[in-house]
């Protein structure tokens, strides 16, 4: 997601890694769960509809993982790492309030089998993401 950073700073969980485009990744075993940061969700305001990559599809780092519409604006969601989509959170697709209310929990978006878990380590820590968010304030 690409968006303006100008409202209150969120507290970003320290057990997650973050992308500049505001996706987060949690690695558990060989499965990576991906979602959108609370900050991104806050910036998007009213979420209307989301479309995510299908299970079984391969995604590349920086490739499109899905799309979400908000305020007549269709926003691309990018894959922060490469891998195969294992599962899509159908509950979020059916009810976007889960993403709005619990972006790090029940509002996760997809689970991926990473091609290379080292890609996750290369992503930003919560501290780095906090600085990046602050640095991009207009």
């Amino acid at each position: 997601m690409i968006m303006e950073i100008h409202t209150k700073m969120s507290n970003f969980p320290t057990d997650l890694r973050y992308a500049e485009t505001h996706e987060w990744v949690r690695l558990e075993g060989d499965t990576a769960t991906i979602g959108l940061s609370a900050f991104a969700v806050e910036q998007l305001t009213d979420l209307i509809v989301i479309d995510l990559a299908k299970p079984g599809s391969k995604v590349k780092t920086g490739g499109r993982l899905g799309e979400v519409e908000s305020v007549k604006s269709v926003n691309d969601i990018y894959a922060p790492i490469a891998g195969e989509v294992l599962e899509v959170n159908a509950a979020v697709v059916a009810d976007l309030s889960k993403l709005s209310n619990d972006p790090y929990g029940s509002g996760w978006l997809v689970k991926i089998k990473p091609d290379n878990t080292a890609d996750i380590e290369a992503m930003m820590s919560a501290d780095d993401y906090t600085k990046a968010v602050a640095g991009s304030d207009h």
Partner: protein
Amino acid sequence: MRSKYNLNVLPTMHADGATQMGFDLALLDHAHETPDTIWLRTYTWSAPTLSLGYFQTWKELPEQLKTPWENVAVVRRPTGGGAIWHDGDLTYAIVVPSNHAWAASARVLYQAIHDAISGLMASDGANLQRRQVEASGVESGQATGSVANSPFLCFDDGDADDLVLRGIKVVGGAQRRRGWATLQHGSIHWERSSHESASHLPGLLDLCPDFAERSPVKWADRFGKRLSEAWELPYKLVQPPAEVVMAAHAWSNRLKELEWLEKR
């Protein structure tokens, strides 16, 4: 201080829906290579056309919504929002690189463009205003509901950033935001259509019979210059780059396929 950005304006084009959407998608892709350039194009439609919002796929629409439009040209936009009936309207597409302040958020870009439009409209006698929060019941930056709950036609819907005349929407917009740039579509509802499902929507000339500029194409020429002045950007009228023309052709062929209407 001179802006580091340029405003490249393409000549107003009269073409079918797939060609127009193909050009816009090609320009959005091309913007990856032109981070210092804002692209503006204006166009009219060679046949009355219904453009669907990106998430309004044709096969998912209820039959009662489709029936009145079954014998007209239909295209799906890359941008969000509701369907627009392009029958005598003026459409614009603007591509703003993500590193420009106007692309910082959806609302900022809507307001920057709508300020320029309303300023130019005022000089011709139409006092367009942003829909007020009190009137619409929605705060700026908020839409009025989900795709399923929203009116099918964009001009039957209301958003705080719409431009209204005598309380009636005459300019609406929608966006596609990618990592490197944002495409904003806008439609200026010039005059009332005779189509049975859109004839209840008065246009600019219906609401302001004394509006000085009668020709949307002439108005479009002035719009680029107005944006240039308002945004303090060097104005350059250019032909579309060859690679954009080629990419637009490829896109338009894809957009003409039923598959594009039916799938995301």
